[in-house]
């Protein structure tokens, strides 16, 4: 039977101390990803495991006029149980689509943001809401826009030696918000992705728009978003084509396959049609 050192710290300071002492330790939140990807009766773990289960600071949920803030250990069920209007609908919708309620009783928001292999379903809504993630190290803390959790190749970037403690979501009002998942339901696949979009309008003119697609990679183009700002709805065909061209350029820069790019652009065209009709 392989021996593991399992630490169950009761607070963030203690967690950071263990991480400093054991730089190769595995931080475990809900453990759903680790267990679901394992085969057989047990999962292979690092020799040193740090369970975040008992850190109450990581479970706090708070709300101000400007934002709602979740401790990284907030389970998806806890997020979904908040009353209407507390959490942006596109985030709730995607969280509700993850696993079953018995899985959501275990899976955490922080865990969903810390997956090294791909972006989980809640990532795209968080990216287009410009959510912030707080990372703590023994030296201090820093807030990072979740869009920066993607590297230059669009793949997830894990920040070694730092602990994700809180996720802050701005409480902005949006006139249009949509999030759709496509790919194989219930299975983890390279082909699964989520497209999310939020938009603010002023007299049928786009005053703010954010579009993010997250799957194996995160696709977001500020250039294309800027091109769409100031355009009247319904969008002219040339405006759509210009935005799609900018997104195609972004996909090429990320090195996405032709099939993946074509699918993304197809879904994006449908999104523009929904935007024209105001259909969420």
């Amino acid at each position, binding site marked *: 039977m392989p021996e593991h050192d399992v630490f169950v710290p009761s607070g963030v300071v203690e967690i950071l101390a263990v991480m400093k002492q054991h730089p190769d330790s595995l931080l475990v939140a809900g453990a759903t990803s680790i*267990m679901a990807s394992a085969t*057989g009766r*047990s999962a292979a*773990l690092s020799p040193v*495991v740090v369970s975040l289960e008992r850190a109450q600071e990581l479970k706090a949920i708070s709300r101000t006029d400007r934002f709602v803030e979740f401790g990284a250990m907030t389970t998806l069920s806890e997020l979904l149980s908040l009353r209407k209007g507390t959490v942006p609908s596109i985030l709730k919708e995607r969280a509700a689509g993850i696993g*079953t*309620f*018995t899985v959501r*009783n*275990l899976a955490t928001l922080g865990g969903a943001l810390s997956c090294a292999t791909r972006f989980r379903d809640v990532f795209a809504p968080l990216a287009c809401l410009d959510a912030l993630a707080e990372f703590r190290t023994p030296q201090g803390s820093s807030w990072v826009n979740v869009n920066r959790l993607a590297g230059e190749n669009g793949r997830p970037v894990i920040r070694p030696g730092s602990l994700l403690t809180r996720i802050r979501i701005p409480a902005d009002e949006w006139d249009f918000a949509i999030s759709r998942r496509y790919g194989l339901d219930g299975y983890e696949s390279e082909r699964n992705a989520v497209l999310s979009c939020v938009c603010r309008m002023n007299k049928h003119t786009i005053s703010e728009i954010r579009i993010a697609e997250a799957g194996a990679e995160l696709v977001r183009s500020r250039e294309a978003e800027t091109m769409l700002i100031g355009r009247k709805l319904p969008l002219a065909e040339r405006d759509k084509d210009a935005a799609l061209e900018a997104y195609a350029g972004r996909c090429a820069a990320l090195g996405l396959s032709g099939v993946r790019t074509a699918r993304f652009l197809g879904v994006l065209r449908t999104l523009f049609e929904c935007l024209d009709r105001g259909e969420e």
Partner: protein
Amino acid sequence: MTVSFILNGEDVSAEAEAGERLSSLLSSRFGLRGARGDCLSGLCGRCIVLLGGKPVNSCLVPAFRVQGAEIVTIEGFGRTDDYRDIMAGFRKAGFEPCGFCDSARVLVASAIMEEDPRPDDSLIVERMSAISCRCTQPSALIAGVRAAAEIRERRVFGHAGA
């Protein structure tokens, strides 16, 4: 590692690998086979147990996570009044889950009634969808859980709601 926890109301401990599935731990060390780990990925829902009062897939819970926790399996839940209410409700509605999903259905029914003593159809269907077994119709499920909720309400409060 040695994991110590409360299992069906009793303090227990066992030697386990840190990453061992709770479903495996329960069956191999304690002979509790009510939680059947079939898919090992949280998809089938047949291994549901109550962890700290909440239904979870025991195949997704590593052994180290149950240290100090309270686990209730169908074997322990079967000794409660809620279990009798649920079984009476299922019988009254003519709902008979199959041998593969019965324990999970009962535990999920108890969680539904805990969440809302008068659950609506959508809550029942959404929560029961955690178990992927095609042995029954949604209408039978709804009738079974509603009947169980009524019986439980009558027992706890002395009357059933409108």
